[in-house]
């Protein structure tokens, strides 16, 4: 299996704050890889750096073998990385359908329709609500919409930032079920979560981030069993 994403020794700063201190990891084709860690560990910062919104001072980021460390953010999306940012960022004033169409802004016009169909297949809920204004959707539906919109650009790598945040347990189950399905239909996934339990249960491999460093890594199963992870993230 080929490597989709290689992050090699990145250091990211917010002014004087050293948020990411030499992180390296990789994501292989067809995998679900998760980065888990407490609030403020540096998970979102890592994703922002991959998607080009922040820059690393050192190291390199490779996507499908080519460096994207200096590629502007909007071109990174076109290369095939979709980022679903934290906090359900939907276009509030547009309808569900229009949000999806916006997701295909950089996609060829003839792909739009089949992509919308694909998203409706994965998220039947969105099809039911296609004409509803996005701002009036429930939290879970907005999360689905943000994920669906990210799929509209035919990503090879989908990066999800805390999709379960603030959702009721039953919705969290649904969202994770969808993530698994998307992965089964061929999308490689980089998942960032505080909900370590759920994330580890679906991940092929996982990394633990603590204050800007990776402190543990292994298969999802291994980490779920690890004493340290259980103590710190799984409540014993």
């Amino acid at each position, binding site marked *: 299996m080929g490597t989709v994403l290689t992050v090699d020794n990145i250091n990211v700063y917010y002014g004087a704050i050293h948020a990411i201190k030499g992180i390296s990891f990789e994501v292989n084709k067809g995998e679900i890889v998760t980065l888990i860690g407490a609030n403020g560990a540096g998970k979102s910062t890592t994703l922002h750096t991959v*998607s080009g*919104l922040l820059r690393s001072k050192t190291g390199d980021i490779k996507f499908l073998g080519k460096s994207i460390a200096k590629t*502007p*953010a*909007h*071109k*990174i*999306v*076109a290369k095939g990385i*979709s*980022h*679903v*940012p934290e906090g359900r*960022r*939907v*276009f*509030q*004033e*547009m*309808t569900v*359908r*229009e949000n999806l*169409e*916006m*997701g*295909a*802004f*950089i996609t060829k*016009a003839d792909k*739009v329709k089949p992509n919308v169909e694909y998203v409706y297949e994965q998220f039947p809920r969105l099809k039911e609500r296609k004409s509803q204004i996005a701002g009036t959707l429930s939290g879970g539906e907005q999360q689905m919409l*943000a994920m669906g*919109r*990210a799929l*509209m*650009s035919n990503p090879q790598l989908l990066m999800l930032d805390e999709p379960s945040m603030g959702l009721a347990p039953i919705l969290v189950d649904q969202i994770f079920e969808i993530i698994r399905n998307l992965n089964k239909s061929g999308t490689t996934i980089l998942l960032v979560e505080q909900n370590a339990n759920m994330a580890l249960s679906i991940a092929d491999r996982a990394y633990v981030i603590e204050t800007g460093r990776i402190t543990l890594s292994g298969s999802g199963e291994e980490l779920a069993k690890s004493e340290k992870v259980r103590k710190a993230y799984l409540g014993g």
Partner: protein
Amino acid sequence: MVRKKKIKAPATPKRLLKGAVKGSEYKREAFIAYAILILGYGFLQLGAGLGIIGHNLQGQFVPICVYVSLAISLNLVVGISGELSLGHAGFMAVGAFSGVVMARILETYISVSSVQLLLSMIFGALVAALAGLLIGIPILGLRGDYLAIVTLAFGEIVRNIMNVLYFGIDETGLRFAFNHTIPLADNSQRIITGAIGATGIRQKASFTAGIFLALFTLFIVLNIKNSKHGRAIMAIRDNRIAGESIGLDVKKFKLTAFVVSAGLAGMAGALFAQNYSTLAPIKFSFNTSVLILVFVVLGGIGNIWGGIIAAALLTILPEALRQFADYRMLTYAIVLILVMIATYNPTIKSTLQMRIHKVTSRIKKRRKETGKEVA
């Protein structure tokens, strides 16, 4: 010419980004805005012809068109792009003075004065757009309200430069200097004289030219608003992070709106200048920028025809209130407050919204019945 390209590029893409409802909303907005301009022009011409409208008010016809255009073009930045610009008068000034200089140069080469006017307006637009580009490039990539600060400073810088700029033509060509008179040959012409401003301007502006300016400005702004480009600009305004996440080049889209808006302001400035024989830099003070912003805010930010009405009324008002002499500005202020109460009053607003909703849902229903609804 150059301008034309700008409209075409965003307007061509497939209608893929337009839902059925949005499309009809757009048509409604465009229809109302064009109707206001054309009817307004008709009524005022008629009133002037029949002698109902006095000379004082007739003298305001060109400024009305200019301020209406400025309100429309500022709406592109403030309403559609969601950025605060406090320097619209600065771009207007750049267009006004560069337009005047160009008009003077053209007078030796072209004899038809309407062609001189048109070319000088295009030139004013280009120079103002260039100024917009120079300011926009370093600023528009940043998050936060930097644009407001920088445009405010820009307006002041332009006015202060104009205050000390001397500009003239003699046999050796164009000459300029700062803060002292330029030694010019005898048969020279001084075009710009420091704080006195541009002098000896030939008055080429007319009400008809003004209405064409307003229509052109409206055409450009509505076209951008309704294009794929416009959808991207409004999406970024709605949620910048989401916009970035779907691969929109935020800086490019914000810059486009800003530069086009600056260019249109410059074009309006060039026409404005040629409505007078002299034009002092003081006309383009911070107060003017704020005044244009007031039109936009009073008309309802992003509501283009609202801005048109506000600009027209508030330009006519001080003139119409002349008979109240000393109480003129007081009355003006009171009217301003009343208009604001009316536009922002929740009861009035919700009544209006309900009306609009009724109409649009009726349209939607009819569309469904005739089976035209887009899946």
